[in-house]
């Protein structure tokens, strides 16, 4: 391989990493309400003139929790029930005080309730409620024999769902009239008057859209999913006044307000920034144009792919060469890079957060590890498939080991080798979309927020450029083949 050609590879992907000096990092989960609450926290903090960086739309509860513990984010919105069940594994903890106490040994704390409870609720059409004078779940007793219901599989299956509720309120529905169906279908069913009552999450945007009324849970039967801010204790101590500002939102977001905001996002397709600004009564921050947004995401994506590509070339090729030369070590190298490949990407990202935090770093590490195998393997097979007579001849002509490698072995292996790098690149363009789940940005951020809103156009603003980038990579490698693969070999490739 020619030295100047190596430089071309080196230069690829050298884009400046964009990271302003951020004081406070706000996280948020990957669904509409998580984005909105995260944006509200971010704008509230920005109003106190601190700089804030947003890591919204991050993967699962587990990822956010790890990110918070490691200090990669400072604060994020979550729900009391989720904290008790998914993180503390103590579903019996009910009150916020109990939960706060249990979190304390982990170095974490929570605010009071932001004012709403996003839990199971029963919903009926508003005119149906008026006709039968329905206010709370208990009121259903009067019409229980004729009531038609559609409940989700989860609600029917959970201990604290259907069965428990029937016992708690002494209700007996006619089993003939209780349908199990997919959650989204039950909204259609109640809209078309096919059923009278369905189970919903209390802040679902569709409640407003379909003009449904929630029945009060007078017995406090359903588990509490109070929205709270979760933060590290050290952050609370260091940024006491900012934390106080966030606490100022306690009790300020009613169930209705949250529902309205969800509807603005899901149905009216307002931006999260705009919704949060409107709620806070502040000016709508100037939102980025679509072109700028896509450009910024392109730069982030290119950075992720470029660095991992560079790594896979700089580490993968020498590893492949070493794997040929040293049998035992070679098998170890091949096996370990194959093992990495079998770890699901989301799991790998989760493992990396405690070490590398969130953001670009863990994403880069994961991408580097994933792009290693195709390069190592193809270097190995490429070299192994060379007729050994060429190596022996080269030595007979007086080439030293390095010259044999550079002048004979690598050029002869270059078609296979380049194919490996190409595979690594295209795989990493695809995998890099997952980097958004740990807050590394890229096209994944657009896809993820589009998915959260069930908004196909937004998904496409990420998915189409990602596909185009893969096509461009394909084209680029066709070009690189002309540069790197010696003309004498091209006929065969």
């Amino acid at each position, binding site marked *: 391989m020619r030295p100047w050609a190596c430089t071309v590879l080196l230069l690829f992907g050298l884009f400046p990493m964009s990271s302003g000096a951020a004081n406070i990092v706000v996280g948020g989960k990957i669904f509409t309400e998580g984005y909105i609450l995260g944006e509200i926290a971010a704008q509230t903090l920005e109003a106190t003139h601190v700089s804030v960086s947003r890591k919204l739309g991050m993967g699962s509860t587990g990822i956010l929790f790890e990110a918070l513990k490691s200090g990669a984010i400072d604060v994020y919105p979550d729900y009391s029930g989720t904290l008790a069940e998914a993180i503390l594994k103590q579903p019996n903890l009910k009150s916020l005080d109990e939960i706060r106490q249990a979190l304390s040994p982990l170095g974490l704390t929570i605010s009071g309730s932001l004012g709403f409870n996003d839990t199971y609720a029963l919903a009926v059409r508003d005119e149906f409620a008026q006709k039968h004078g329905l206010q709370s779940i208990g009121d259903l007793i009067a019409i229980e024999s004729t009531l038609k219901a559609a409940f989700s599989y989860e609600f029917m299956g959970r201990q604290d769902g259907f069965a428990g509720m029937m016992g708690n309120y002494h209700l007996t529905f006619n089993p003939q009239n209780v349908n199990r169906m997919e959650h989204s279908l039950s909204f259609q069913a109640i809209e078309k008057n096919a059923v009278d009552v369905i189970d919903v999450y209390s802040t679902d945007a569709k409640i407003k859209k379909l003009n449904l009324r929630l029945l009060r849970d007078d017995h406090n039967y359903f588990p509490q999913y109070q929205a709270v801010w979760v933060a590290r204790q050290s952050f609370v101590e260091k940024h006491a006044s900012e934390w106080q500002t966030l606490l100022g939102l306690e009790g300020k977001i009613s169930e209705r307000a949250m529902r309205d905001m969800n509807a603005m996002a899901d149905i009216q397709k307002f931006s999260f920034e705009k919704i949060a600004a409107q709620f806070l009564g502040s000016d709508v921050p100037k939102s980025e144009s679509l072109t700028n947004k896509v450009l910024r995401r392109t730069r982030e994506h290119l950075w992720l792919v470029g660095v991992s590509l560079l790594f896979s070339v700089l580490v993968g090729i020498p590893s492949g060469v070493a794997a040929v030369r040293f049998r035992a070590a070679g098998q170890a190298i091949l096996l370990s890079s194959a093992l990495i490949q079998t770890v699901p990407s989301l799991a790998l990202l989760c493992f990396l957060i405690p070490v590398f935090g969130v953001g670009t770093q863990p994403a880069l590490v994961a991408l580097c590890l994933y792009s290693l195998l195709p390069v190592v393997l193809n270097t190995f097979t490429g070299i192994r498939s060379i007729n050994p007579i*060429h190596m022996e001849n080269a030595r007979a002509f*007086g*080439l030293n080991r390095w*010259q044999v490698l550079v002048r004979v072995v690598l050029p002869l292996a*270059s078609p296979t080798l380049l194919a490996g790098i190409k595979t690594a690149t295209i795989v990493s363009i695809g995998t890099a979309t997952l980097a958004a789940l740990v807050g590394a940005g890229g096209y994944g951020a657009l896809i993820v927020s589009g998915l959260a809103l069930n908004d196909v156009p937004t998904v496409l603003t990420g998915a189409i450029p990602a596909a185009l980038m893969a096509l461009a990579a394909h084209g680029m490698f066709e070009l690189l083949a002309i540069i790197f693969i010696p003309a004498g070999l091209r006929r065969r490739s």
Partner: protein
Amino acid sequence: MLELQHIFKTFEDRAVLCDVNLVVPKGATHALIGSSGSGKTTLLRITLGLIPFDKGYVKINDQALLSFTQIEWADRIGYVPQDGGLFPHLSGKNNVALIAKLRGWKRTRIEDRVEQLRTLVDLGEEILARFPYEMSGGQKQRVSIMRAAMMNPDVMLLDEPMAALDPLIRRSLQQELKSIFKRLDKTVLLVTHDLGEAVYLAEHITMLHGGRIMQTGTYRDLLLNPASPFVTEFINAQRTLPDASEFH
């Protein structure tokens, strides 16, 4: 002068070469002949310095192989591998010039030397620009000879140079080789399994069998005073075509 004296070589307790002596005087062409398994390939690799040997010595112009590094030795022996052994990724010219480039020769010096050798092996300029897959068998052989001669070695070593060629080309290239050797004025060791070729190209022949030298001498010696029945057997095994009288 190329000198191999008392060469012994064992592979995993199996004697592959046993007391092999071979001397090629300066400017002479010598053929090493033997069937497959005779040890001739091992002897060739030893002479090239590619593998170690147990006993004996290899010398070129009274300088011993073991006193050089592999790379220094390589410049003393011009090697023409089987089928030419050109690197498929390099053009003919780059194959010829590769070593000189690595040794830091000036561009003009390389150009001059290539041109000189091209004339010597009588090869068209356009052929040198081609890649090996675009060349005929004979063209590859000539390019390979140019490459072997590039560093002006004292000794040329050719491994089965005609094996892959069809009979007609073989015939004309044999004649060509004879005059090339003459013009090069090098000490040449030719490894072959074809007695006819050996007789045609070389003054002296060394016959190797089972890792031992059966006989060294001219074809006349081998034919009239065979050192062992094997020599006669080998000579008789070279099939000759019946002449016209046999069809009357």
